[in-house]
């Protein structure tokens, strides 16, 4: 099999990690000390939430799949930290980080994993299906690439209603070969929709590396050119770079109502899901290299220590608090009751849950 040509990586990825060259970008320079600390706190909270999830999973309390976000925190944190009232987000099944970033509580997130009534979807969605529409978060979708057309529809609705907003539709590097994604690209470009397709490229679509899955001889974002869309590549280990380059795409959406494809290079430390023993397709050394040298939470901490925004003591305090919050959420997720058998048939139809003289439904809709 012919090897594809060298991938287009962001320049900053080719150098050893150090002070971020994007610290002075206006979108970052304008952040107050408190805002920077808040951003770091959110990243630390995602990290500790996920690590706590591993323990609960290993205790057998989480069924089904658990796709961890550890290592990719700067992507959700950097992009979502820029969003305003009319900006919406939607993603695939690696959706915990985005949920915590939009402001979902650890309790409801953790209890959804254990399938409890206190979960964000009352135990009906699970890990892959977090939703918080009150926070403009539209999931949490289980089928690879299936959310891309939905995101395009959210952007369409924002434009239809005449609002200055956007949709950020996230996907993994494996999704770019799904037809639904290409159909979404075409519609977004054809109709000038305010959408940013964010490819979180962690290098592996499950256990298949990009080289073994994707024919395009270049970076994945470049496929945007085939649809006349703008694109960019981003070092996803540097939250400042994520913010700086996403801000450009967001302006394009808000000011020109034009779509963008962003490819954010990132890395996951754990398997595709907890069911993946992670022994067949990559080396332990590769994971160690990323953990030691490109960890996004660690790099941002160092950045803020250099900027004297953080002190080691404050950082410790933030991390301790995040761990304690995750511990508490684990207790909540343990103690929240199961949904009941009667709950199984609720939330299927709006008209059924709200049946009355004005609803359009009669007859039997839930069958024996």
């Amino acid at each position: 099999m012919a090897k594809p040509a060298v991938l287009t990586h962001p320049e900053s990825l080719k150098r050893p990690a150090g002070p971020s060259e994007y610290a002075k970008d206006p979108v970052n320079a304008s952040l107050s000390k408190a805002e920077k600390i808040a951003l770091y706190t959110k990243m630390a909270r995602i990290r500790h939430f996920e690590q706590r999830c591993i323990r609960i999973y290993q205790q057998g309390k989480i069924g089904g799949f658990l796709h961890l976000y550890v290592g990719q925190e700067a992507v959700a944190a950097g992009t979502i930290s820029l969003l305003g009232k009319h900006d919406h987000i939607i993603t695939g099944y690696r959706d915990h980080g985005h949920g915590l970033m939009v402001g979902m509580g650890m309790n409801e997130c953790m209890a959804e994993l254990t399938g409890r009534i206190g979960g964000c979807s009352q135990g009906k969605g699970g890990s892959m299906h977090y939703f918080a529409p009150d926070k403009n978060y539209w999931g949490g979708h289980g089928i690879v690439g299936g959310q891309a057309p939905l995101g395009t529809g959210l952007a369409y609705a924002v434009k239809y209603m005449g609002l200055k907003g956007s949709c950020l539709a996230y996907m993994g590097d494996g999704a770019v070969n799904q037809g639904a994604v290409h159909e979404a690209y075409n519609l977004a470009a054809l109709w000038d929709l305010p959408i940013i397709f964010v490819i979180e490229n962690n290098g592996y679509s499950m256990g298949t590396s990009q080289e073994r899955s994707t024919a395009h001889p270049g970076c994945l974002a470049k496929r945007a050119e085939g649809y006349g869309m703008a694109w960019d590549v981003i070092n996803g280990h540097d939250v400042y770079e994520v913010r700086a380059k996403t801000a450009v795409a967001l302006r394009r959406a808000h000011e020109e109502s034009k779509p963008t494809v962003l490819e954010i290079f990132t890395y996951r430390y754990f398997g595709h899901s907890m069911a993946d023993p992670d022994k067949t397709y990559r080396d332990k050394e590769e994971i160690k290299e990323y953990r030691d040298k490109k960890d996004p939470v660690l790099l941002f901490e160092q950045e803020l220590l250099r900027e004297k925004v953080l002190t080691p003591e404050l950082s410790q305090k933030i991390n301790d608090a995040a761990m304690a919050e995750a511990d508490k959420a684990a207790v909540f997720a343990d103690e929240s009751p199961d949904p009941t058998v009667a709950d199984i048939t609720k939330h299927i139809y709006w008209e059924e849950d709200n049946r009355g003289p004005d609803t359009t439904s009669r007859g039997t809709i839930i069958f024996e």
Partner: protein
Amino acid sequence: MAVISYREALRAAMREELKRDDKVVIMGEEVAQFNGAYKVTEGLLKEFGPKRVVDTPISEAGFIGLGIGASMLGIRPVMELMFWSFSYVAFDQIVNNAGNIRYMSGGLINCPIVIRGPANGGTNVGATHSHTPEAILASHPGIKVVCPATPYDAKGLMKAAIRDNDPVYVMENTILYNDKGEVPDEDYIVPLGVADVKRVGTDLTIVAHGRAVITSLKAAEILEKEHGVSVEVVDLRSIRPLDEETILASVRKTHRALLVEENKPFCGVDAQVAYLIQSKAFDELDAPIHRVSSIDAPQIYCKRMEDLQMPNVERVVAEALKVLA
């Protein structure tokens, strides 16, 4: 009361709902400039403009998914599939996304979308364009499916579907598009899940939906004239929700049931109806329930054979006489 065609009735429903609610958008392949592949949306672009009546590329997974996403934010898209057969390339969107989003979000998100278009055989176009997926789709909790047989029901069900807060899939029939019938001028809806007794009788109940209703009504006439049998024809109109009471009331009256549909027999809508009758009216039956479905094969191209493959008046009469024997 005006006499208009099934096609005009559908168009009138969409026009009235476009006027009533500015969140209603018509979208699909060839719906705007081309005036609709089957002219159902004819004139709507001229009247409402390109923001409300939107041509899409041939990209069902893309534009149906887009409609679902827009509906989550409160838009009320009415999406045309040129044929329901084309829904199969958008199955993930139609089933997984539209059908599951309310449930998986614990009731936080609604999907008030309408997907409509013809779903029928009998047009000499071969297997890929002749699918009737009402049973397949209605088997998914979260989805609603209706199959109007007359202009009155087409308009009333379409208006109810557009106002409904759940995904409603309206399955029309190209062979019925020119059928004419009386339709009130004033605003009305046909609620989902209400069957209609299209002909009153005492000796046999025929349960049907879609064009099979029209076939069954013709068969009922022959049965009356030539065999002296009084047949009641129950038009389901809505597959899910299903009006179980009207079916059971009719069977309790006639004590015999024949189920007619244009689907293939395996797991068809009538498999569910047969189960219902035997489970709730077993003691009322004086004879086994019979079915007339399409002959169990992919839709044949040859027109002469396709007319025999599908339920036709002769087959319905013959099967009815067996139930009555």
